[in-house]
């Protein structure tokens, strides 16, 4: 025990000559002059709803499949085919992984996309004599046909396996996230630990290997979370820049090198400049007038008879994903948007990819000149930005990778590559932080959504208590306890307070929290009163079927405040 509890200073004193910056500048240097880590976080909340076939939320998943995940896979296959030294890190959140292999959702996706293809066909006919829109209609049709063809025939309806194959080929590094994307700084040790443990287990379930890193939902970090990650043998995580700027002690290399937490887990900071160039609709590339306009969609433009199949159950309209207009200008109203020109958009993609690569190369040269060692720039984005929100995003990413592979200022790396590169990194503890507005918890804890927290905290404590009490549950009680844990998990997704905070689909987000907390309360009462209603339990199990391998024992333990 003595050895295992040796204080961290041991590593400092055991090789004190290694612990000064000048020596590092010359010793153990990585062969690469710099590293660019492009990191895509793919996540959607668990939106499966057997009772709502044409629901709005399942549509988010279907759109992301067609517009983001399938194009991303096709793009990465191209890098492999062309033998490029491309390295991209992708976190696939557990809810997304579970949905990707859910039979009901897969079947619905195929049905929905075939219907969309029929609509795209009719659009080709409708615009056949309209010079402004004909080529865009043909492009739309071709993309949907390609997506459904790839999904059914190339990937045999299993995108997870396709991602795994690209990882095996060395193109992608896949990592996990927390079980249901809970905002961890809002929870205590037992529940945060359970979220992390189940996230790690989900990855092992789907990929038969251990996840090298973990995407912390919303980059939410407080000291102590690193210990829980270490428990699951997680090597690294990503934080926002100010987590390193305010780390303890102050990192000598700023945000352009990962730091090693005292627990041994590495923390990489996102680069604010690389983020803003891609993220921001105001100052970033996606706001270019040549790119396709997201908000102008035929779901709102055509008569309801034409898009009947895509109307919501209450008759309301929604985006169907077929669009004909370009951004045109930041202040141009939707009805004044001009027709989309694919060639112009691809010119913009080329310009912006070139700019992005040169900017990173320039920045890396600059930092290296100052520090004398290979900088690490981390550029993390939501995967769904590429293709869904920013239509040309996949083409941009493709060109960034191809242009990066053709230059020598930096190497495309994954966080694991960086850690294995021979560089030494400083020990420091990142500061509490998130990547949300204002950098802390304001987005997930404000006057609009604060009502959620007492409910989920109470449920987490109750879950911990009852899991501790039932050490040998069997049969119906075992099923009920596992379902209880599922309801808690689904209630605590960071997506719900985020949606409420942003004012988007507020009603849906609130209904999801209420539904899962109500089911939790109902099941808890039944377990405690030894009066489990098997019919109800079966219904809830069929509805909220995430993590069939879940073990309620993971939730036992005291929900104490996380300690550093």
């Amino acid at each position, binding site marked *: 025990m003595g050895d295992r509890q040796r204080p961290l200073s041991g590593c400092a004193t055991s090789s004190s000559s290694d612990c000064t910056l000048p020596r590092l500048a010359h010793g153990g240097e990585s062969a690469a002059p710099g590293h660019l880590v492009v990191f895509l976080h793919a996540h959607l909340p668990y939106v499966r709803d057997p009772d709502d076939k044409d629901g709005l939320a399942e549509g988010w998943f279907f759109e992301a499949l067609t517009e983001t995940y399938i194009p991303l896979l096709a793009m990465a296959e191209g890098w492999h085919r062309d033998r490029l030294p491309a390295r991209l890190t992708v976190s696939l959140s557990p809810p997304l992984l579970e949905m990707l292999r859910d039979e009901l959702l897969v079947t619905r996706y195929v049905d929905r996309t075939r219907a969309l293809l029929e609509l795209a066909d009719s659009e080709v006919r409708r615009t056949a004599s309209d010079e402004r829109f004909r080529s865009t209609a043909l492009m739309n049709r071709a993309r949907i046909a390609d997506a459904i063809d790839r999904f059914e025939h190339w990937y045999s309806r299993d995108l997870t396996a396709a991602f795994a194959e690209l990882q095996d080929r060395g193109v992608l590094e896949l990592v996990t996230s927390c079980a249901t994307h809970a905002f961890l700084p809002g929870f205590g040790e037992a529940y945060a*630990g359970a979220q992390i443990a189940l996230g790690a287990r989900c990855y092992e379930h789907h990929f038969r290997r251990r996840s090298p890193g973990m995407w912390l939902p919303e980059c939410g970090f407080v000291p102590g979370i690193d210990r829980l990650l270490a428990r699951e043998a997680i090597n690294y995580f990503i934080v926002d820049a100010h987590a390193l700027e305010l780390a303890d002690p102050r990192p000598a290399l700023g945000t352009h090198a990962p730091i090693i937490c005292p627990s041994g887990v590495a923390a990489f900071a996102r680069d604010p400049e690389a983020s803003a160039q891609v993220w921001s609709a105001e100052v970033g590339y996606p706001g270019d007038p040549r790119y396709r306009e997201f908000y102008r969609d035929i779901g709102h433009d055509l008569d309801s008879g034409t898009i009947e199949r895509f109307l919501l159950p209450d008759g309301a309209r929604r985006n169907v994903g077929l669009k004909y207009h370009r951004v045109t200008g930041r202040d141009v109203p939707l009805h004044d948007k001009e027709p989309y020109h694919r060639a112009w958009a691809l010119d913009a993609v080329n310009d912006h990819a070139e700019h992005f690569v040169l900017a990173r190369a320039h920045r890396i040269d600059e930092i290296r000149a100052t520090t004398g060692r290979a900088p690490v720039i981390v550029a993390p984005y939501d995967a769904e930005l590429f293709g869904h929100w920013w239509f040309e995003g996949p083409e941009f990413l493709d060109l960034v990778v191809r242009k990066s592979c053709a230059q020598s200022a930096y190497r495309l790396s994954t966080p694991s590559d960086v850690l294995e590169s021979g560089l030494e990194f400083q020990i420091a503890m990142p500061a509490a932080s998130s990547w949300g507005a204002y950098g802390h*918890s304001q987005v997930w*804890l404000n006057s609009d959504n*604060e009502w959620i927290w*007492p409910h989920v905290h109470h449920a987490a404590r109750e879950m911990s*208590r009852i899991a501790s009490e039932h050490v040998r549950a069997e049969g119906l009680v075992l099923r009920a306890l596992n379902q209880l844990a599922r309801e808690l998990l689904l209630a605590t997704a960071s997506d719900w307070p985020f949606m409420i905070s942003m004012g988007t689909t507020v009603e849906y987000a609130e209904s999801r929290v209420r539904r899962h907390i109500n089911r939790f309360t109902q099941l808890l009462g039944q377990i405690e009163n030894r009066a489990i209603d098997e019919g109800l339990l079966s219904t809830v199990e069929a509805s909220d079927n995430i993590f069939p391998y879940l*073990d309620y*024992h993971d939730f036992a333990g005291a929900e104490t405040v996380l300690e550093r």
Partner: protein
Amino acid sequence: MVRDPRSGHAYWDLSVDRIDAAVGPSDRRRAFLRLIGVPGGYVLAEYKVRAERGSQAVALPEADSSYLVELAVMHNYQWVVLARSNVVHAPPTMARVASMPVFVSRAEQLRLLAESRERELDRASGDLVPAPTRGARPVERQAGAPVRMGAPARIGSETRPAPAGSEPRLASELAFARAGSEARLRLREPVGIPFVMPGSTAITAPAAAALGALAAAVWLGRDPIDVLHAGSKLASALADAGMPSGPVVAILDPPGPDVAPPEPAGSRTSSPGSEAYTVSESLDGSITVTDRDGNFITYSPVRSAGVDVSRGRSAAAIVGVRHEL
């Protein structure tokens, strides 16, 4: 909860009956939420609030500092605290002072990570380490091999709320050793053995603790049948998993005196072994364990830290701070 370096959010939900029993209905209306600096204990701000239920945005005077809040009422000319929050730490806003940086290689990082993992797994399993115990005999007979029992790794660790809640982890992460060797195997990764322990309870053996010996004890199971069942199932699961070949050592029970876990309430004496302990519980929830030499340790519930004394039907965990003798 901390919202940002300068603001926090507090909420509470107390039953009116409970408040009235403590301070009466008239004083209930004189409730304040008090912001307190930690560790100084100074009251930094007061907000007039409703006692029974509510929430309050709290301005934090200083970043990078720790705070808690108390819900208190003035009753009979003194403050009565109805509830106390967990301690929160406001994030920093200023860069830290630079100090001599300590850099580590990948090999050193991996060593740190492995050590942390060990430590965390131990922590999650109640800091158990193997130690010989006579309570193992029934399990030894069943397993056909020498058996050792688990005990907290260091004095004080028994105050963790781990034992009852950590049983599943104990089950899957127990340390094992071949007979005659101290090699430890973690079962958690190579095989997922579906195995759960019966209830557990932690108390200490004060006389030995006073000598600085490893004296904390963890009971896994309220009766020998439970322990026997657990040991048998464990041995069988190990054999099915094919690891390791030969006799295995299951770590199931504490060294030291065979003292039964305390009952949820009242007072009792237990002396199945050579030592006798009295375990008593007071109305405020604290539990005192006294040995026959008069040494005693009192555990007080730490409700303010977000934990509570909890007792399940099949398990009991004492969660508290230890007052020195």
